[in-house]
């Protein structure tokens, strides 16, 4: 069963009752929430995701904090199995806080993986890893590429499996901020976007539904092949500049959430990934041009 099979009020009933067990790649999150905008966001953006019956890895809840404030200036809070790891946010940020919370669940507990803060997409079984600080245009580039023949593995969390050296997908909605929302709307008019929420910690935020194929192939890993540090610059011509492997290694280490927990094993996982990758810095000003550059890169022998 997929989320889209839940007809009418069935999804909202599940969310406000026993919870929706949502599978996203290797993890299942049991979500409960009485809030309409959470039900709407989940129904819209996780339409193609499987609903699981079995073991749930995380138990999360989005609701309004108790207290008088809920009548005056309602807020939303994220709870991880009863415990709120973040401060509450303004009342209309129910769906964004769910997304951030689900990222947090993976990045703080799934230490069987080496987890890098990076977008990652796949073509021909090979993974393109895009680590970058916020504001570098990584999510925009990632959203653009998945509309031009690349499969989405994740826009935030690159899970390197120490056993196989492969990147494991966690295909989930892609987070778009501020101007990117409109850029993607124009670049891929067929894309499905959640309503934009304004004045979040990251500015205006909307989420883009991941393509169906990436959801269907969510258990299929990919071998690291390219590591690219993207940087959006208005008017810049799209260009790949070779990046020395030593610096690429350090970038990956610095972008990792849990490198410090993996000791020597972590050094080796990142080392193997870098060894297998062609590494570049990439400046771009136009998404179509960027997509062309990456299509050429993928076709290189």
């Amino acid at each position: 069963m997929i989320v889209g099979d839940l007809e009418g009020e069935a999804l909202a009933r599940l969310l406000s009752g026993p919870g929706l067990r949502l599978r996203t790649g290797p993890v299942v999150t049991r979500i409960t929430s009485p809030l309409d905008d959470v039900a709407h966001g989940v129904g819209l953006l996780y339409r193609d995701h499987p609903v699981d019956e079995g073991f749930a890895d995380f138990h999360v809840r989005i609701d309004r904090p108790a207290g008088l404030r809920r009548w005056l200036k309602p807020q939303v809070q994220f709870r991880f199995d009863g415990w709120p790891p973040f401060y509450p946010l303004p009342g209309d940020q129910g769906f964004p806080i769910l997304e951030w919370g689900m990222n947090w669940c993976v990045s703080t507990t799934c230490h069987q993986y080496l987890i890098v803060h990076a977008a990652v997409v796949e073509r021909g079984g090979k993974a393109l890893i895009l680590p970058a600080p916020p504001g570098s245009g990584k999510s925009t580039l990632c959203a653009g590429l998945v509309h031009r023949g690349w499969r989405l593995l994740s826009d935030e969390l690159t899970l390197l499996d120490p056993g196989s050296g492969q990147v494991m997908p966690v295909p989930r909605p892609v987070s778009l901020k501020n101007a990117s929302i409109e850029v993607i709307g124009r670049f891929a008019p067929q894309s499905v976007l959640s309503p934009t929420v304004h004045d979040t910690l990251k500015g205006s935020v909307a989420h883009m539904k991941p393509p169906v194929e990436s959801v269907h192939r969510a258990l299929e890993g990919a071998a690291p092949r390219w590591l690219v540090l993207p940087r959006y610059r208005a008017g810049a011509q799209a260009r790949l500049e070779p990046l020395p492997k030593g610096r690429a290694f350090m970038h990956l280490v610095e972008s990792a959430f849990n490198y410090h927990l993996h000791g020597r094993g972590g050094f080796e996982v990142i080392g193997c990934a870098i060894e297998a990758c062609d590494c570049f810095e990439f400046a771009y000003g136009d998404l179509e041009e960027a997509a062309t550059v990456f299509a050429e890169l993928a076709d290189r022998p």
Partner: protein
Amino acid sequence: MTPLVQALRDPADTPSWTRSRWELLVRQARSADLLSRLAALLEDLGALEKVPAEPRAHLLAARTVWRAQEEAVHREVGQIRKALAPSGVEIVLLKGAAYLYAGLPAARGRVFSDIDILVPRAVLAQVEAALMLHGWATTHHDPYDQRYYREWMHELPPMQHVTRQTVLDVHHAIVPLTARLKPDSAKLLAGARPLPEHPGVKVLAPADMVLHSAAHLFLNEELSHGLRDLVDLDSLLRHFGGEPGFWTALIARATEMDLEQPLRYALRYSNRILGTPVPGDALSGSVSRLMDALFLRALQPDHPTASDGLTPMARWLLYVRAHWMRLPPGRLAYHLTVKALRKEREEPAAAGR
């Protein structure tokens, strides 16, 4: 019996559990900070591979964190020794770091939040200065907090290393100076045992180790991780319990150290909850039904599925009791007033962020 308690008592049985029972077990173990302990128990039984794949992933992840912590503790103790070596002060490791260095089963899978050491009160200033020279800085800058720790407590305000961010608690006693019970720190230090493989580092003698663990748990205000501390006690008692003369020595030492009450609770609840083998005569001594009602609730995992309607009240009453045990009435009133006023001052800032 909650799944977590059942799993701690009989880990070998858990691989055959259903996935839905495992789901509950992982949730409870995570909230009690015992997921890596469970992983270690199963690993030692060679049963980790038999656990269903989904919960096993969480156990392996928790084991990764624990192994990294273990390595970090070794590194950190090395740094502390280096900092204190010129002063000639020998350090006595307490709690988790002690179990690790002494090679005790209690260390297996035990998570650390900080490192605890015990030094003679007479050299406290010297130790603090040496640590500061090597990068540890005090964490509580509020003058009231400084006074609270320095005049009343059994430890310096926690020190944090400025680059490694690790936290070190320097103790000069095992209960607050103001506490009703008065164990003699000099006797603890005198009884401490050197570790042949780790020169310059000592650990408390077995009975004192148990007594410290008992005093720590049963005088603690905060019992949300009480089960984890009870697991320490259970493991220590199972390990040392087989040594000839241990129980007689333990009970005599408790009398000598004015720690009979915490030991009585430790033996009772460790036996009742975790099935720790305790000889019948060591279990004598009366405990009120009220205490049973409170501790048997508060020592369960801090999770909605392991609580009943009275659990929050039990934790709160034990919070009050611990304060009562730690501070005389006048100071207690003063302390609670300061804390209450401070809470009022801080709350809007927290919510407004």
